[in-house]
């Protein structure tokens, strides 16, 4: 393959703020890298840490979880639950050899299309510098 490395980023966005924010970026024709593949969930409270591991296992180079700002979650405190999981999940990912830059939790409101575009652009650049996430499969023993 030639050309520069294009990271594969999985974005897990809550329905009420961040997904709408991303939509706004589109409607407003703000440009952001096509590296992000967006999955919509109802709330970041629904984001089981296993989703993040699974994304990495299936070949994501980065995972971005984005929800409503603290205090504005549609379900009151789903985002606070995700906020609590983030440090422990990041620590566990580091131990599994997945750098902190590859997993991010951010808050983007429905009106922050611009901010969403900026976050995606930055994350894409950072991961591009880091290189692909390759998970080795080990010997052929099966």
């Amino acid at each position, binding site marked *: 393959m030639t050309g520069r490395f294009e990271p594969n980023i999985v974005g897990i966005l809550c329905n009420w703020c961040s997904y709408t924010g991303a939509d706004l970026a589109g409607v407003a024709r703000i440009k952001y890298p096509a590296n992000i593949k967006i999955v919509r969930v109802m709330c970041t409270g629904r984001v089981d840490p296993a989703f993040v591991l*699974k994304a990495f296992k299936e070949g994501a180079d980065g995972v971005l979880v984005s929800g409503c700002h603290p205090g504005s979650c549609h379900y009151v405190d789903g985002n606070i639950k995700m906020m*609590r999981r983030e440090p422990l999940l990041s*620590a*566990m990912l580091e131990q*599994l050899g997945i750098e902190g830059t590859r997993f991010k939790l951010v808050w983007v409101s429905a009106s922050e299309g611009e901010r969403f575009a900026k976050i995606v652009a930055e994350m894409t650049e950072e991961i591009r510098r880091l290189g692909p996430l*390759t998970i*080795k499969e*080990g010997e052929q*023993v099966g």
Partner: protein
Amino acid sequence: MAKLKLAVYWTAACGGCDVAILDMNERIMAVGDACDIVLWPLAADGKYHHVEGMPDHSIDVCLFHGAIRNSENLAMARLLREKSNILVSFGSCASLGGIPGLANFYSREEIFRRAYMESESTVNREGVFPQQSVAVPEGELTLPEFFDTVYTLAQVVPVDYFIPGCPPTTDQIWTAVQAVVSGNLPPRKTVIAGRKSLCDECPRVKEEKKIQSFKRPFEVMVDPAKCLIEQGIVCCGPATRGGCGARCTKANMPCRGCFGPPDQIADQGAKLVGALASIIDSQDPQELRKISHLLADPAGIFYRFSLADSLLKHKRKEVC
């Protein structure tokens, strides 16, 4: 009725599973009445060539305990699969990777360096490492290949039943023995243990879960009646299969997760992050980070027995 032919074999394991079988006390007599032991390195004799000489499927039941760490383990797993009608993945090492599976946090090179160069009791000035083969005047000597990754038994050969536990309880073993002897076998792939999480059978009183910090058992005067997690103690119960009778939590010790996750949980570590982090009583990112860092080794604690069988299976390695 002809006696059943029973084999017990170990690979990367501590031998505690063998002892667990012997721990059935007088019930072991019933096993002796029903079975002929054709192979059991710890308690009886048996050499590779004996097993190789047996006709295929001539062993009725093989209790296989231990993870697959090297090429010898793999060869025996394949051989015993061929020779056995029922292959049971016995204990946490065979079923989940177990403690040997924690080596998946390191590569083969790192393990060798630590074991043969850096460990406190090692002096190795010439930098000698084990080789797979070496020529000596008498001929060539060989050692099995040490794999870069630890595997579970089911990752290398098809397995009929699983009996998790470090070690399995005598009741589980007895259930399995009775099933085999009576011919009343559960569906293939059944895990002989509970269906639900340990919390479900743990007798401790569970109220509102909110914790201010993570503690180790020795740092607290443990309330014998109250949920350990509510006391800040890291307990793997929420993401661990029950069926053990909650023996650890009944003895004031947190669950270490040796039964692995129940069927509906894909990844024990991920589930424990969710279960424990979500109840930290703070909304301040700084403070959350501080409290989370009280857990020095989250992956090691949450995957203590199941790393080799988890979603990611090992620490990420570059393609080589």
